[in-house]
């Protein structure tokens, strides 16, 4: 089904504004997506009519909010095709999901001399938590290298995986380059070595259908705000056996069964990992965003975005002195580039003056920039509401940039 983009755009109030006297063109969707009115309304509705603390009150509002919250868990379970809703843990987002595993999993399973494997194209969020864990447990961080196209060199994977490799953490889609990693293949290889795999799905869930059972990943992390939902909320999916075996991440209310001063017994999944009063309103907002995506159909979204990306790639390819950073065969969401003699920051400022929002800089992936020997890139990232006309205007704006700095 072809998406009616003009119609869809009317659902997003933030897209209809002027910036520096020009119609906003929003190409910074990999940083965060805009929110449809339905999501905004859902959060407002919760605070207007349902607000109460969940899982404990005996009163009407508490029941209502608890039911809505647990229904949201089911919606997210279906979205990721998780076997059970107990495997959906609500977090503050991908970063917290990764930190939870890095802290809790490593505490239990990582011993001095062990290794954690990540890749050369990770976001800082999928590097630093593992560095901290490795420091804490005297383990070593190993890195899967990538090639000049911005693709992982998987021929090294089998030698990098050893009996010491306790976990492999890799991104589904690179936030800096747009590369889609062959994670199913990576997971299969890692599992042959007995190594569980965590997938950073922050950049994937708005562009690709994710089926955690088909992937057979051990952990999958995602954020609502990259998926047209609210900020500050996300999901950690985990295989039940791991989640059961892992110790709690934080202590507090909600995550306990019984507490005395001598001993505390922990609650069952998923509550063991959800200490404190959760962010109910935003979880409901996230559910609404998932419903919105489901309504459009992730396959339809992917088809529109692929067509738009191909168009943008061919147009950008004809801009003089423009150099693509990363030319992976499989790509979604992101195109990174730079001009030979123009600092990305300068490009970003002029594009902003022209009403075009892109991200410039290292995109929280400094090792990727070091690899390409550049201070940063200009990153254009797409959502389903972007159009060919917007791409045309970007090209025109880039020509202006080129002239200004030549």
């Amino acid at each position, binding site marked *: 089904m072809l998406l009616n983009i003009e119609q869809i755009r009317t659902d997003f109030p933030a897209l209809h504004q002027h910036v520096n006297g020009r119609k906003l063109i929003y190409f910074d969707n990999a940083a965060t997506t805009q929110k449809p009115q339905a999501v905004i309304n859902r959060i407002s509705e919760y605070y207007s009519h349902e607000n109460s603390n969940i899982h404990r009150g005996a009163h009407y509002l508490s029941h209502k909010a608890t039911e809505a919250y647990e229904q949201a868990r089911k919606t997210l379970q279906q979205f990721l095709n998780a076997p059970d809703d107990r495997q959906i843990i609500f977090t503050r987002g991908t970063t917290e999901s990764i930190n939870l595993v890095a802290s809790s999993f490593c505490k239990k399973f990582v011993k001095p001399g062990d290794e954690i494997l990540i890749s050369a194209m990770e976001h800082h969020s999928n590097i630093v938590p593992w560095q901290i864990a490795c420091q804490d447990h005297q383990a070593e961080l190993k890195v899967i290298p990538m090639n000049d196209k911005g693709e992982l060199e998987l021929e090294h994977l089998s030698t990098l995986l050893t009996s010491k490799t306790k976990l492999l953490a890799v991104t589904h889609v690179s936030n800096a380059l747009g590369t889609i990693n062959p994670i199913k293949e990576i997971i299969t290889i890692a599992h042959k070595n007995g190594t569980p795999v965590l997938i950073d799905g922050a950049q994937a869930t708005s562009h690709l259908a994710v089926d955690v059972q088909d992937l057979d990943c051990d952990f999958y992390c995602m954020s609502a705000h990259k998926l047209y939902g609210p900020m500050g909320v996300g999901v950690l999916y985990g295989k039940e056996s791991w989640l059961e075996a892992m110790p709690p991440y934080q202590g507090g209310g909600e995550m306990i069964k019984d507490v005395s001063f001598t001993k505390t017994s922990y609650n069952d999944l998923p509550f063991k990992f959800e200490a404190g009063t959760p962010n109910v309103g935003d979880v409901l907002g996230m559910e609404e965003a998932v419903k919105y995506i489901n309504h459009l159909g992730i396959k339809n979204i992917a088809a529109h975005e692929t067509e738009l990306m191909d168009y943008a790639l061919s147009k950008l390819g004809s801009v003089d002195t423009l150099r693509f950073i990363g030319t992976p065969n499989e790509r979604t969401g992101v195109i990174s580039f730079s001009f030979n003699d123009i600092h990305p*920051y300068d490009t970003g400022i002029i594009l902003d*003056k022209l009403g075009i929002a892109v991200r*410039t800089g290292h995109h929280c992936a400094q090792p990727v920039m070091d690899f390409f020997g550049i201070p*940063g890139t200009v990153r254009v990232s797409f959502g389903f509401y972007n159009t060919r006309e917007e791409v045309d205007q970007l090209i025109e704006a880039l020509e202006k940039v080129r002239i*200004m700095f030549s």
Partner: protein
Amino acid sequence: MTIQEQEKNIIAEFELFDDWMDKYNYIIELGKSLPPFDPELKQDKYLIKGCQAHVWLYPTHQNGKVFFTADSDAMITKGIVALLIRVLSGQPPVEIIKSNLDFIQQIGLRDHLSQTRSNGLSNMIKQMKLYAIALESSHKK
């Protein structure tokens, strides 16, 4: 020329532009006309790191006045660096410490200073003032 006089001149120059593009072209030109920064001074101790654009600042003093040379890897940042140097370099430390650099706002470039993480500009001003404070207090001793 005093800091205030320099600021007044810059404001008058920028009033000539009615189009943002002319203004930014002028800023880029200012950056290009900044005297070259000694490559040997491109050391970490003179580097003011921004999240995106970096600034190098090298202060010296002579006859009770402070002199700055500076550079940036981004042209627009470099143009604003040139303006700051024009206003503050060669001034007595007391005047540098007192300056509030209102002209930046008046010529419509305040955004570039508030983006504290993206470029080194606001930290550059802080460093310029810190240097002036250090020099001033060492004189008092």
